């Protein structure tokens, strides 16, 4: 069956189905509904679907464009919605480039709260060869000059479940507080990192400057100061003194293997609800 089907057209009560098996090009179109300016609630609804059942050779270029322009100045809340789904089950050769573009341009000057939402997901179950280059782009531009609070969030999740060859790149979020393995250090006040170097001196007779050589570095040593009001924190920190190599995560994004070499909690009686502690950590790989 030849492709493409095209849909530019006009009808208000439409159920146009093509069950065509002959040759030639089909062009089915569904057009805009009449606009309404009277009182009452209008709920126009348009469902469109293109379901190709094509097994032959050739390139399919299916397209479905949906536009819901809302030009409303009256009272009442508008709840326009557009849903699009592009489910592709392709086992043949060739590259697939499916794409969905969604935008909600809003120029709103009236009172009331806006709660726009664009939800996008690209679930991919791909086992064939070739590189995937999926991209989910979100841009939120709000030129807002009116009163009221704006609360904008752009959550993004990338989950890679890849079994074939190739390189995966992922970035770990910086922890908000220093961590040793999964233990977040409570109420850290200061982190002091010393990268100590051993320098050997060889004095030169006759007033010359000495010859100095950097013999080596011992690895970074950390002193972490903080406080806690919880005995469970003190117990957890004390339990780190077990000789096990762990990973220290710095809030600036750095991380390295460490051994916890010392822990000193304050035992001052008048600071029972704010117990200072000092943790000594040495870099070890």
């Amino acid at each position, binding site marked *: 069956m030849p492709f493409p089907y095209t849909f530019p057209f006009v009808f208000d009560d439409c159920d146009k189905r093509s069950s065509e098996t002959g040759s030639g090009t089909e062009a089915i179109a569904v057009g805009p509904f009449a606009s309404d300016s009277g009182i009452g609630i209008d709920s126009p609804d348009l469902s469109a679907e293109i379901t190709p059942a094509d097994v032959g050779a050739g390139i399919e270029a299916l397209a479905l464009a949906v536009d819901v322009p809302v030009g409303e100045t009256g009272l009442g809340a508008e709840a326009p919605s557009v849903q699009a789904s592009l489910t592709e089950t392709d086992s043949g050769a060739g590259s697939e480039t499916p794409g969905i573009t969604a935008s909600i341009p809003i120029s709103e000057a009236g009172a009331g709260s806006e709660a726009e939402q664009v939800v996008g997901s690209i679930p991919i179950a791909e086992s064939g060869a070739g590189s995937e280059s999926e991209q989910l782009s979100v841009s939120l531009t709000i030129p807002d000059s009116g009163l009221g609070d704006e609360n904008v969030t752009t959550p993004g999740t990338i989950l890679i479940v890849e079994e074939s060859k190739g390189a995966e790149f992922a970035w770990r979020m910086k922890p908000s507080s220093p961590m040793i393995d999964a233990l977040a250090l409570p109420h*850290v*006040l*200061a*982190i*002091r*990192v*010393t*990268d*100590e*170097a051993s*320098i050997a*001196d060889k*004095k*030169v*007779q*006759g*007033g*010359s*400057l*000495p*010859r*100095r*050589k*950097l013999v080596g*570095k011992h690895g970074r040593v950390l002193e972490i100061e903080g406080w806690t009001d919880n005995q469970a924190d003190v117990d957890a920190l004390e339990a780190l003194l077990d000789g096990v190599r762990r990973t220290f995560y710095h*809030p*600036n*994004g*750095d991380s390295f293997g460490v051994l916890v070499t010392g822990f000193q909690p304050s035992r001052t009686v008048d600071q029972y609800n704010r117990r200072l502690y000092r943790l000594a950590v040495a870099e070890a790989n």
Partner: protein
Amino acid sequence: MVTFGGYRLQHVSAIQTVGSRIIHDRLVPSAKSFSYRSDETAGGRVVTVSGQIRDDLDHVLRLEEIRVRADDTARPLDLEDGSSAFNAKLGSVEMVWTVEEGVERPSYSATFHETS
């Protein structure tokens, strides 16, 4: 500003210089008022430069730029205080983050050892 091998150390707030000389000091029998002393040679200055990384999104990179220069290579250290530059090797580096300054404003302290 302080430069080490052409690299400019950011926001230097203090420089501490400790100079030393090798002095031979030998007590002389029967000479109770003073001993024999001689100035043998120079000990070489040890200069500690302290500063802070400020208003720099790449503050982690700046600290690494300092650390990697501890590579046993003598470079000219210019304190730019009117004194002449001299060759030195970078030794220990200390970095401090405090809750008052935040993660993005670390303080640092680098120790340079004058060498021939």
